[in-house]
Each structure stands twice: as structure tokens, then as C-alpha cells.
């Protein structure tokens, strides 16, 4: 039964909305813009700022019958109390006549603006918010022309207070709306900023270490209605009206958050367009109006002075800069006759257009094509049509296995947390506690190598011991209407991960869930377009890269750094006759190449990426290309040309047409279809920035979700359970874990985040540490890559005994769990 409709009149307009709608939302939907500061449609209303004051006329009721009293014309007799009420805290009722522009309401709001401006500083000329400031806009619309407040009475407060190194606070500008504090507490569960003092001295404060310790902190600057909270990144950067805006997709993880890249021409960059900041773009089905701080502050790699801007060739043992013509001539000469002896390795960072051309080249030459990401399952991942994490409800369940979403895909963590708050049953399956556990109905922690048993029990109710949590979880899962399974690879070997993914795939088929809306399997890929790579037919090397290199003479690498990830591969690459590397930076792999080709960063070009939910989304260029860098798809076409293989080289759009023709799942994915957008709730940006914040409206496209319907024949047969029970190594096992801020090449150049980047280290359980004679901060010797590395030790009770956690991509190369090669007596 749909929600009952309430009919009322707002400023003369008849309005019908579902019961429970707040008056402020009903007014917005009716086009009557009741101003707000503290209200935000994604936060609980608090009625603090008192800006949304309106008059409400209620139909009088007959005391005896309870019916409306009507006048001779049959109209309900209304009573207006003569008092103003806050629209944001008031759910609508039938028959109301609301006046938001009566004399009383206008005067009331004028008075509120006068109060708000009493100690608000006249900073507009130097304030970053100028031009996109709700206080400015609403003051012009609703305030008195002059203030009667004497300047000398104005309160003086801190003005350049860093709340941590990412966000600055100006306490004088703050109007105590509480949106930032409430966002942190209600939405992202990081109550690391709060109110301090009271009365006029009420101010924002942080006591976390580091300050404002939340990976979502940047969002508060979008919803702050004044210039109190600004990012260190954009402070004094530019005026909003000076900047261009280009729609993009975040390159850092598989969620695929929608972005807007703001740029401006600058004298100090020689008149070039420079990225000034990255903002969220609204897509209610992906990231709503939020982005994490990695996406917001992690774009500096595009303009890093370390970027490759010109092709390079090796002459006399050294790489020297050259032209494209010379580099391609070297490729033509060096890889003449390449065929089966060619190995092509591509990374999941590349766009669909890049990967399509790359695959076409390798196919044509009959070479071996390999995806440089060992995590399996991409041919089984995807959800039913119209799936939307924001629609998960009490009848649904989500399983999250072998990953820490808060560190790997923060917006998915947020979406699932919110689903849990709506009643969705969340089940976590990990080696160790993760941040999602707090919102999970069932946290099924298991030991190393024991995930298989737990998963089987979860999938087969009745298998687990009666009365156990596992049995309860299994029952809950069986009873759920819709199930989505997220899986990562933390603590799993490649074999285990494969079994995990396939096992859930089989279960989704067996329980007739696959193919239905809000059902399916999602891989928490470490990169933004790994799903696209799988969709386009790329696969990880069946037996590892070393095996793939065996017998090859040539290698062409695009958007990946296998030598950097595993230095043991260096020698194998050196043995090859000719190596071409196409990259953003001079990585260790590029450093071994014969020819290095400079690739454009995502900010400089267009294309599409396919998210982990299998949503294909377009990104557009925001700044011109750096130097002679070319988009990967174009560089590949150039290489193709050099090797006598004609490939599509006119545009990314043209390649997409080819993808549509060649890949059945992508048949409907046209650039036009991807550019379709609809109106979304809540309204944000532009004239609506006072309501929803300064996130950008999405006119550039919501993307298209590719549904996945699995059938039994798609999946391998169930392996023997013995395969799923891995032997537990004696002693300590090193387990690589993800950290949001790691030392990856696309993040390291972001100097703003430098103090938050994970460094090589080991986290131990205090009991294990004691046995090893290690204290917190001690240095451990680890036999590694032919030598011994000194690694600092941290202790944490959250680390399960027997495990030593190592952050990925932070200096210690580790892809799978392995026995800890501790050097004897190397304890400092």
C-alpha cells in the first residue's frame, strides 16, 4: 500500500505529497522556496536557525464530530495562530493553508537574518564562499537592508583555525547551523567535530588526533552555508564564477563517484588551465552528493612535475626524451614480427576505450593479453537491472566478505551503513574487525584459511551449530528477499578468492536471485575500471605474470606497474628483447622499458569507466593534455599503426561505437545514452545550493547500469571442500590490508594528504608482540626481496593473534598472505 497522500495549499498552490513529508520539502517541491540554513534534506531536521518560519493555517475541527468546520461556501474554516512555525520540523497535514510570504513571515525572516549577521564578519571580499554562499543569497533575498548592530559589539573569534590539515575553520563566519557536526555524526559516524562553549560563543571544535579525523571531512565544506569551513586545498584559490566545470568520474576506486572538476586559467601556469578543485556531482544511485577525501584531494597527480610529458627511447642504456615519431619508429623496429611472442599487460585504471583498443591490438597480433590484477570473479560480477544500494530495505541482506569497505570503497561503506539503518541485514565475513561491523547484524569473524567453512555454513542453513550466530545469520540470509554480496581479497589467496566469488555466484543462481533487482555479486576492485577490463575480455594471468612472461620476447604494458608491485619481476622483464611501457609516471616498470610513451591523466581526456556495480559512466576532459601525452587509446592506436595493425584512432566516442558492436553487454551503451540525466532529489547547486549544498547538479549523465544474469553454466563446478581449507602456517602470517591513503602513484603527489599516507609498517596483536619481545614502535627486521627491511611495529588489540597486518601499496610489496619471514634477532 503506497503512502497516503496529503493535500494542502502552499502560497496559493495546491500540493499533494506523501504523508510524513516535511513542510519545507513539500514547499520546495511545489516551487515555493522556503529559505533554510540548518535544514538539509539528508540530515534530521533540528529547527535551530529559525530561518524557515512560515505561517500555517489549520482547518478548524468540530469538537464533537472531529470533522472540519466549513463556511457557507463549503470551504474549511482556517485558524492562523498568529505565530510563525519552522517548516523544517513540521510534517504536512491535510487542508493546511501555508503562507511563506505573508507580512508576518517576511518580517520574521528579516529579523532572523539581522540576528545572523550581527557578528558575522564582512569577509565577503576575502571569503572563498563568495559567489556560492547561501548566506549571501538568502540575505539579499530575505534580509533587511541595514543592520542596527554596532560593529564594536561584534564578537571576535578565531579566523584561520586548521581543524586538522585538510579543513580550515573561521569561527566568526560560523552561524551555528550544526550541519557539519550533524553530518559527521548522523551520516558518516565520525563524531570528530563538535560544538564547544555555549550561547554566542558556541563554536566548532575537534579533539581527534589528527584533527577532524574523518575521510569524509571535505563534504562538510559543501553543505556549510557560509565560508566557515573551507578546504586547505581550495582556500584563496579562485572565485566560483571564474571556473570551468567538467564532469568526471573518480579514478581512485571501483565505486565510480561522479565528480565535477573545476579549472581556471592562471598566469602562474603560463596561461594554462589548472585544476582548482574537485567537487561532487550528484548521482543518487552511486554517491548521492558525497565524495570521500581521497577523491576530493587526490587529483594532484595530474599536474605533478613527475608526469611523463614526452616519449622516451633507450639510447646507450639510458632513456632519453624524444618525439612520437621517433618513439614509434623505435617500436616498429624493435617489435617487428611480434605475434604469439608478445605479452600485453593492462591495468584496471585504463578506460574502456583504452582497453578495447589494447585488446584489439593483442588479438590481431595473436599475442597473450593479461590483466594486471590477480583478483578473480569479474565475469560473474554485476547486479540485476535497476539495482540501487539506496533502495535496500528491511527485507534485504548484504554480505561483505574479505574487505574493509571503509578503507577500500568508502562510499559503498556509507551506502551500506545507511542500508543497515533502514533495516537491511548486513553480514560481515572477515579475518578481523572492520568499521562496517558496527552496523552489521552479524559479524562472522573467521581464522586465516577458514573462510570456506564459514561461507558454506552461511549458504546452507542447518549446517552451522544450532543456536550459533552463524546459524542465525544463515537463516537471515535465506529469508532475505534480495541479497547483494560484496567481496574483496583480504586475507585470501588467489585460489580462495576465486572459490569465494564462484561460490557466491553459484548460490545466487541456486537461490534464483541472480538477475533480479538488488541482487548479485560485486567485487571491491582496487581500481576504477577493473570491471570494464573484465567486461572487455581481459583476464588475469592464469598462473601469474612470471609464468606469462615465459617464452615471450616482447612486452607492451599500459597503465600498470608490475615491477613496482613485485621487484622480483624486474629480471624477467630485463630478459625480454623489447619492452614498451605506456604510463603517467616513470615507474620502476617504465624504468626498464625500451620505449616509454606518455599517457594522459583522466582529467585531460574523455572516455568511460565501468564501476564495480557495472555502471558505465562517462568522464569528460577538464584541462588540456600535459605536454605530448596522448590518451591511452590513441597511443595504442599509434603503436598499432607502427606494427601494421589499424585501430580506431579518431575519438573515444568512435571506439565506444566499436565496443557496442563487439561486446553484447555493451550494445545499448552509447555516449548519448550515458549522457542522459533526470532531475534528482534533493536539488543541489545553483539556485538550490542553500538547500542541498554546493555539490553540482548532474546534467552530464547518470550512466547506464549493465545487468548481470548468471546461469549455472557460467560458473565452475563446486570444488572439493578440501580446496577451501587452506593450511594455517605456523608462526605469524603477514596479511596485506588496504588503507585508503596509500602510496600509490596516483595519490602520492597529493602533498596535502602526505601526513595521512600509510607507511610501511606491521600491526601486531599485543600478545604476539610480547612473545617476540616487541614493544609499540619497535623496529622489526623482515627478510625481503633478497635483503632485510626494517619495519616499525604497531600494536593493536584488533589484530587477531597470529596475523601481522601490512598496509598495501605503502612500501612493502605484498599481494597475498604469506608466512612472515622474520630475521632472527633483528629486533631493535
Amino acid at each position: 500500500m503506497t503512502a497516503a497522500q496529503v493535500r494542502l495549499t502552499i502560497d496559493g498552490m495546491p500540493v499533494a505529497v506523501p504523508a510524513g513529508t516535511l513542510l519545507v520539502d513539500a514547499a520546495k517541491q511545489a516551487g515555493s522556496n522556503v529559505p533554510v540554513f540548518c535544514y538539509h534534506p539528508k540530515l534530521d531536521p533540528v529547527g535551530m536557525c529559525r530561518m524557515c518560519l512560515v505561517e500555517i493555517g489549520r482547518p478548524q475541527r468540530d469538537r464533537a464530530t472531529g470533522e472540519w468546520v466549513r463556511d457557507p461556501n463549503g470551504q474549511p474554516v482556517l485558524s492562523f495562530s498568529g505565530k510563525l512555525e519552522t517548516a523544517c520540523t513540521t510534517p504536512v497535514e491535510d487542508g493546511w493553508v501555508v503562507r511563506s510570504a505573508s507580512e508576518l513571515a517576511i518580517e520574521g525572516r528579516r529579523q532572523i537574518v539581522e540576528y545572523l549577521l550581527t557578528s558575522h564578519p564582512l569577509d565577503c571580499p576575502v571569503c572563498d564562499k563568495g559567489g556560492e554562499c547561501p548566506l549571501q543569497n538568502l540575505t539579499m533575498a530575505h534580509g533587511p537592508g541595514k543592520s542596527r548592530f554596532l560593529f564594536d559589539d561584534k564578537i571576535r573569534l578565531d579566523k584561520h583555525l586548521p581543524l586538522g590539515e585538510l579543513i580550515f575553520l573561521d569561527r566568526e563566519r560560523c552561524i551555528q547551523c550544526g550541519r557539519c557536526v550533524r553530518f559527521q555524526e548522523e551520516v558518516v559516524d565520525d563524531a570528530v567535530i563538535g560544538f564547544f562553549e555555549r550561547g554566542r560563543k558556541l563554536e566548532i571544535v575537534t579533539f581527534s588526533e589528527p584533527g577532524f579525523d574523518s575521510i569524509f571531512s571535505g563534504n562538510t565544506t559543501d553543505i556549510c552555508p557560509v565560508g566557515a569551513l573551507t578546504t586547505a586545498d581550495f582556500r584563496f584559490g579562485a572565485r566560483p564564477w571564474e571556473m570551468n566545470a567538467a564532469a568526471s568520474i573518480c579514478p581512485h576506486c571501483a565505486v565510480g563517484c561522479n565528480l565535477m572538476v573545476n579549472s581556471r586559467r592562471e598566469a602562474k601556469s603560463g596561461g594554462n588551465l589548472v585544476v582548482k578543485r574537485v567537487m561532487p556531482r550528484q548521482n543518487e544511485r552511486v554517491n548521492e552528493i558525497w565524495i570521500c577525501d581521497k577523491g576530493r584531494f587526490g587529483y594532484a597527480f595530474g599536474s605533478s612535475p613527475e608526469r611523463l610529458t614526452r616519449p622516451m627511447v633507450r639510447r646507450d642504456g639510458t632513456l632519453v626524451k624524444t618525439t612520437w615519431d621517433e618513439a614509434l619508429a623505435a617500436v616498429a623496429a624493435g617489435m617487428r614480427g611480434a605475434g604469439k611472442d608478445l605479452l600485453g599487460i593492462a591495468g584496471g585504471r585504463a578506460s574502456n576505450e583504452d582497453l578495447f583498443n589494447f585488446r584489439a591490438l593483442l588479438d590481431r597480433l595473436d599475442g597473450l593479453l593479461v590483466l594486471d590484477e590477480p583478483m578473480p570473479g569479474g565475469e560473474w560480477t554485476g547486479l540485476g537491472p535497476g539495482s540501487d544500494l539506496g533502495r535496500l530495505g528491511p527485507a534485504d541482506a548484504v554480505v561483505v566478505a574479505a574487505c574493509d569497505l571503509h578503507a577500500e570503497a568508502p562510499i559503498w561503506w556509507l551506502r551500506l551503513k545507511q542500508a543497515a539503518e533502514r533495516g537491511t541485514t548486513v553480514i560481515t565475513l572477515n579475518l578481523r574487525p572492520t568499521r562496517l561491523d558496527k552496523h552489521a547484524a552479524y559479524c562472522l569473524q573467521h581464522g586465516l584459511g577458514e573462510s570456506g567453512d564459514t561461507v558454506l555454513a552461511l549458504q546452507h542453513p542447518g549446517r552451522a551449530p544450532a543456536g550459533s550466530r552463524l546459524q542465525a545469520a544463515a537463516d537471515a540470509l535465506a529469508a532475505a528477499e534480495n541479497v547483494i554480496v560484496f567481496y574483496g581479497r583480504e586475507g585470501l589467496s588467489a585460489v580462495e578468492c576465486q572459490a569465494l566469488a564462484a561460490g557466491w555466484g553459484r548460490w545466487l543462481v541456486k537461490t534464483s536471485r541472480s538477475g533480479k533487482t538488488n541482487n548479485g555479486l560485486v567485487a571491491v576492485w582496487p581500481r576504477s575500471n577493473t570491471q570494464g577490463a573484465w567486461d572487455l575480455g581481459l583476464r588475469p594471468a592464469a598462473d601469474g605474470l612470471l609464468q606469462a612472461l615465459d617464452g615471450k620476447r616482447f612486452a607492451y604494458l599500459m597503465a600498470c606497474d608490475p615491477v613496482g608491485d613485485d621487484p622480483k619481476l624486474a629480471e624477467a622483464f630485463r630478459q625480454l628483447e623489447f619492452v614498451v611501457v605506456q604510463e603517467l609516471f616513470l615507474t620502476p616498470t617504465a624504468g626498464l622499458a625500451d620505449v616509454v610513451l606518455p599517457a594522459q591523466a583522466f582529467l585531460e581526456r574523455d572516455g568511460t569507466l565501468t564501476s564495480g556495480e557495472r555502471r558505465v559512466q562517462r568522464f569528460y576532459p577538464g584541462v588540456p593534455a600535459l605536454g605530448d601525452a596522448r590518451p591511452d587509446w590513441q597511443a595504442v592506436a599509434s603503436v598499432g599503426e607502427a606494427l601494421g595493425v589499424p585501430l580506431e584512432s579518431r575519438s573515444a566516442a568512435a571506439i565506444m561505437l566499436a565496443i557496442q558492436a563487439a561486446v553484447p553487454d555493451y550494445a545499448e551503451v552509447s555516449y548519448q545514452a550515458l549522457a542522459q540525466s533526470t532531475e534528482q532529489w534533493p536539488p543541489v547547486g545553483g539556485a538550490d545550493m542553500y538547500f542541498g549544498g554546493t555539490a553540482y547538479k548532474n546534467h552530464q549523465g547518470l550512466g547506464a547500469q549493465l545487468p548481470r544474469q548468471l546461469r549455472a553454466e557460467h560458473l565452475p563446478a563446486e570444488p572439493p571442500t578440501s580446496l577451501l581449507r587452506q593450511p594455517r602456517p605456523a608462526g605469524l602470517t603477514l596479511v596485506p590490508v588496504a588503507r585508503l591513503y596509500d602510496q600509490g602513484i596516483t595519490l602520492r603527489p597529493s602533498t596535502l594528504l602526505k601526513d595521512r599516507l600509510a607507511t610501511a609498517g606491521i600491526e601486531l596483536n599485543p600478545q604476539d608482540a610480547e612473545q617476540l619481545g616487541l614493544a609499540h614502535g619497535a623496529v622489526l627486521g623482515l627478510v625481503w626481496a633478497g635483503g632485510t627491511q626494517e619495519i616499525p611495529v604497531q600494536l593493536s588489540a584488533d589484530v587477531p593473534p597470529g596475523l601481522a597486518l601490512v598496509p598495501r601499496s605503502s612500501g612493502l610489496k605484498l599481494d597475498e598472505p604469506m608466512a612472515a619471514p622474520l630475521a632472527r634477532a633483528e629486533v631493535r
Partner: protein
Amino acid sequence: MAELLLLRHRERPELGELDGYQAQGGFDGLRKAVTTMTPAEVIDLVKASGLRGRGGAGFPTGVKWSFLSPGVFPRYVVANADESEPGTFKDRELMERNPYQFLEGVAICAYAAQANLAYVYCRGEFWDLAYRLEENLQAMRRAGLLGERMFGSAYNLDIRLHLGAGAYICGEETALLESLEGKLGQPRLRPPFPAAVGLYGKPTVVNNVETLANLPLILTRGADWYRGFGTEKSPGTKIFSLSGHVARPGNYELPLGTTFRELIFTHGGGTPSGMAVKAIMPAGASSSILPGTDAVLDTPMDYESLAAVGSALGSASVIVMDASVNLTWVLRKTNEFFKHESCGKCTPCREGTYWMLHVSERIESGGADGEVRLLRSVAAGMQGKCLCALGEFATMPVVTGIDRFPDDFQSNGRGGR
């Protein structure tokens, strides 16, 4: 001499000890409720008595109890002992000298509300008093007057203490609940009211100390007896806290409907200076200030009569000022108070109390007449817009002070206190 229902310890100090209290029929009311009445019957009895809240709002207590959401459990009772209104010191005396009558009242309220846990939220400054109250509670527990199976029934109850930490706003019942929950003491949106969503989100009754102290005798002597005191609409006695320019400041328990004149002159001994009473603030700092005219002095002190003369009884914290006082100074004092105590949550109170203080400081030291108009306008601009009563009441002394004592606000009539 009128019968004392609340400050009974003045005639019988032994009431402060448990055996002394029990010897005088103490806990008979609670026993009667728990062993012979249903919670609904207790609510009806209190409704019939007409007892009104003594914390300031004057809302009928039994009616307030009847708003508890049916079928939702657990329930809680919280005694509001955050006595912070300037000029109020009645709850303190009750808790110090007649604690068991108060605690028995808490227990009766808890039984009626079907609550098994009650808290006394005591302002932090009452530190020593709270220690003694804890000793009183221990004594009650040892005597089986709290705990499991009270009086052999199935009912169990414990009463515990919680200390505030210096915030007048925590006397507002929803701010009190927030504080008790370990959060900032800022008022909640209402609705929902505590009877539906209170402590920890559960139905809760919050009552003032004096209100609760009325309950034991209502239980043992009945509603009709109680209605024999006071007026028809304001039955019972009231403890009036008298302070300021009076010879004998202190607490006076008198029937509601006693006149100002009787309180101030007969009991309070009049102004020590012998000067006329210039101004009366009947509800502490949250008052609509009344001039010391004969008409006002002869006004009965009850909720209705005070409303009729453009004021309010509130907590009956009567502050008396003689002719040596200048209202510009008084307003500066009340504005200082409200500016210090404003929680800051809502714009008009946060900005308005700060603004009013600055303007009234200028007025006090001889500012322009325009400042007086401005002060009144800033106050009027807050009215009807604040989130809670603190902001609203902050405006009352300002508006009434300026309107009713215009001479004090003329430039040539100025000069501080």
C-alpha cells in the same frame, strides 16, 4: 499560622531522619499506592487533586502523567532538581531538610508511571546536598523502601542521582534529558514530548522537586483535602522564595492565592530601607516585572491572577526591589544572566541575548534614547521565534521593564543602581 504541607521540617526537624519521617506516617502514601491502588488510580487521584507543576509551567501534574504512551516500556521518572532560576531556593530546602517527603514523592510518581528506575537530576553546585541525598537513598534501600518487591508487592524501584555541571538550560525538561543522556544540554524539538519520547527515547515523566513533595500527603489525605488549600484553579500550597530588598528573605510556604502584600510585608518584613517597593519580579529573572502599586501588592499570587495583571507566577521566586533600584541596572543583570545561560542552539536567543546585553550596558551607562527603542525591538524580535522558553523569557523583563518603568529609561533618569 497556615498548615505546612511541604516545609514540615520547620516544625518537626526530625523528619530529616528516616526513622523520624517514618514515625510521622512517612511512606504511608507510597505504601498505599503500591499495595492498594493501580497506577491508573494514582494518576486519577493526582488529577483530581488539581496539583499543578511547581517548576514554573504550572501544568496539571496528573494530566501530564496521563500522556505517557500506553504500552511502551520501560518508563522513567526524572526529578528536576536543577534549581537555577535566580531567586529560587525552595527545592534546595526540601532536599536538605525534608528529603524523604521528596523521595517518597518520586517513588509515588514512579509507581504511577510504571517506572522501575527514577533519576534525580541535581544541579552540580548542590554537591554536598547530593552526597547527603545519596545517604538518604541508601537508608531507604536498607529499609526496603526501595528495591525489589516493595511492601511485598511485585513492584520494584530504584532512585539514583545524576549531577549536572552548571547550566541553567538543563532545567528545561528536554535539555535535562539530553544532559542525563550524556549529551550537550540543549533542548529538543517538541513534539514529541517526554511522555512519548523521553529518557533514552522512552516515555518519561519529568517533575519538579516541589511538585513531587506534594504527592505523599495527597495520597494519604486525599484530593478533596488538598483542594481545601489554595484557590479553585490553583489548589494547594506553594513555597514562595522571597529575596531581594526584604528584611527576612527566605522560603515561605503559603496557600496559593496569598497576596504579594502578605508575603512581602507580613512574612518578609518589608524593605529594610523603608522605601516603597518599586518593582516585583514574581518568577525570578524570567519575570514580567510588576510595579509595586497597591493593585499589584493586593494581587493574589496564583497562576490565573498573575496572568490577569500581565505577569506570570512561574516558580514563585519573588524578587523585591525598592526605589533605590534603577531598572536599567536590573535589565543589565537579567540580560547578563540569559546571555551566559543561552545554550546557543537557536539564532534569536543566541544572537538576541548577546545583543540585548550590549545594548542594555550602553543604556545603563547613559546611552541614547534610541538605544532603549532598539533594546525593546531586539527583544520583541525574539518573541515567538525561539526554540525553547529561555529565549522567550529572556525578553519578558526587557519588554515589561521598558514599558512599565518608562522614567528609568529616560536619559535624564539614568545613573546605574
